[in-house]
């Protein structure tokens, strides 16, 4: 079978099954059964599929997702989160869309430092989205910024994916990590601009209400009692991480513990709240993990069948000008990103793209960053961006997949704009590492 036939078979079956409404995880499993049968020699291929899925699931790197979820759910069900947002609402006064800004700022700080896109999307999604919906924000005002900042985890250091990319590509790890700082912050600024634009274009997107004037002393008290302790928990786990007390994979467990302790101190830790938190975290985890189980194997089938490598080799066989070649590679990464998980994409494309980039005269650090950006975007591109499904899991009942797709869209545009900027002004990435 030629690569494009394999590609058509695999992508065709998954798209069809998802479109008719098969649960995403089951659609992956069904497409995997078809693929394994065809490319791995019949029913024994299905056995291999189960083995591969088991390998993909029993990975320590997946640990932050349920634990960050647990942390967010405890925040939410004990009412700690609500208290914090009430206070922030009061403190920020009349600024339209203030909680969306808070989301971008908090999300940028948290997701970048925690290094886990799925984990921080899970945390912020379970914490912010239901609360903001209750306060009358349109859902795209909470979902969009969270999806946007979730991806920042892999651009701004620390970033396990950036380290892996640098080692695979044999480029300077530190330089690639530092190169991500300025573009990452620019991206966060774009997100802020997007929210400002959204509240300007649609004043009803975020609630507007009057805030009673407060004395400075009262504001200070509010800040110290309602905001600082909650934010303190997040800051504390970040400090633990920077100090080398915990690895990023372990940090989430201490986050959950911290919120538990906090809830106990504030006397709002009830048995019901604890139970609801575990159930809430469990539901989203199970949903996301079964998708990981299916999609990891799907990625492998795309590679094993030769479909993805065929696509890559076909695309780079065109002899084009360097800029056009860059766009071709970027498009291939985006396309693969829609269906494959990030590490597989890197393993597959790095050995092919980096020598090519070098022969075209690209700076490898700069090219590495463009590649990271494409992976960042692929976390939130329909149909299979994993963050979209995590979001679907934590968003309130009745939030449709389409709402989530459309919420993500402006923030994907921000990333694309950043890529364009980096092409025009490579020094945005390269200035800091050269210092």
């Amino acid at each position, binding site marked *: 079978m030629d690569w494009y036939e394999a590609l058509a078979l695999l992508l065709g079956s998954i798209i069809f099954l998802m479109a008719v409404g098969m649960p995403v995880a089951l659609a992956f499993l069904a497409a995997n059964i078809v693929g394994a049968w065809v490319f791995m020699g019949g029913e024994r291929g299905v056995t291999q599929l189960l083995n591969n899925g088991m390998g993909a699931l029993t990975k320590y790197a997946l640990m932050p997702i349920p634990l960050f979820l647990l942390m967010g759910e405890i925040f939410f069900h004990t009412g700690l989160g609500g208290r914090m947002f009430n206070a922030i609402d009061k403190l920020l006064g009349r600024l339209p869309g203030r909680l969306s800004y808070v989301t971008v700022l908090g999300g940028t700080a948290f997701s970048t430092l925690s290094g886990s896109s799925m984990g921080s999307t899970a945390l912020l999604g379970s914490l912010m989205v239901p609360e903001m919906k209750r306060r009358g924000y349109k859902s795209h005002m909470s979902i969009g910024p969270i999806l946007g900042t979730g991806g920042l985890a892999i651009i701004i250091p620390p970033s396990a994916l950036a380290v892996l990319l640098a080692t695979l590509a044999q480029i300077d790890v530190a330089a690639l990590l530092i190169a991500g700082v300025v573009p990452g912050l620019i991206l966060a600024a774009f997100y802020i601009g997007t929210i400002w634009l959204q509240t300007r274009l649609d004043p009803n997107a975020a609630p507007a209400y009057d805030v009673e004037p407060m004395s400075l002393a009262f504001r200070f008290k509010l800040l110290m009692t309602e905001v600082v302790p909650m934010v303190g928990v997040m800051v504390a786990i970040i400090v633990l991480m920077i100090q080398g007390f915990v690895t990023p994979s372990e940090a989430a467990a201490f986050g959950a513990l911290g919120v538990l302790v906090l809830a106990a101190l504030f006397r709002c830790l009830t048995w019901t709240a604890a139970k609801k938190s575990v159930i809430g975290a469990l539901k989203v985890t199970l949903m996301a993990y079964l998708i990981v189980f299916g999609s990891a194997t799907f990625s492998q089938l795309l590679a094993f069948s030769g479909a993805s490598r065929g696509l890559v080799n076909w695309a780079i066989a065109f002899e084009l000008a360097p800029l056009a070649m860059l766009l071709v590679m970027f498009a291939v990464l985006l396309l693969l990103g829609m269906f494959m998980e990030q590490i597989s994409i890197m393993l597959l494309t790095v050995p092919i793209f980096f020598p090519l980039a070098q022969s075209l005269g690209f700076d490898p650090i700069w090219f590495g960053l463009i590649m990271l950006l494409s992976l960042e975007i692929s976390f939130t591109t329909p149909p299979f961006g994993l963050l979209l499904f995590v979001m679907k899991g934590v968003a309130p009942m009745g939030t449709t*997949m389409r709402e989530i797709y459309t919420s993500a869209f402006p923030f994907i545009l921000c990333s694309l704009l950043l890529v364009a900027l980096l092409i025009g002004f490579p020094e945005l990435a390269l200035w800091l590492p050269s210092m």
Partner: protein
Amino acid sequence: MFKKTYDTLLYGMAILAGLLLVWLMVSVITSVLMRNAGLQPFAWLFTSAEYGLLYMTMLGAPWLVREKGHVHIELVTAALPATLRTIVSRGVAAACVLVCLILAWKGFDLVLTNIERGDYDTRAYYFPRWMLTIAFPLSFGMMAIEFSRFVFGTDLMHSGEAGIHE
């Protein structure tokens, strides 16, 4: 009687999955504290957490089917008239049953192979592989039963609700 036993099993597995989630937190915290106190963390803390991820997913998945927690996209189903939607919805559920049955069957095969070969998972310990893979036939078998409720039962998997919201 059978139904009651089955439901107890389903919810019992879900509760176990929830406890495993809590165990993840406890095991990570314990091993970090031990390490920073200069002790050698028990390797089984680490390994049990990794295996816990698999057990948790498989034990909880059938319950999640009952709760309609496996995310799906209502695109076609939302656009269809009610009768046709019913047919498509039941058809999709039937396809899910088929997928789960195939995986349960091959999972059972895998367990037998693991026992016959004496396979071990080699991380910190040599752990009999069949004790992990046994989760597959159990989980997918029960998922097949749960999906079949959407084929034959009164409740449908698809609400068609996306159409109302959009």
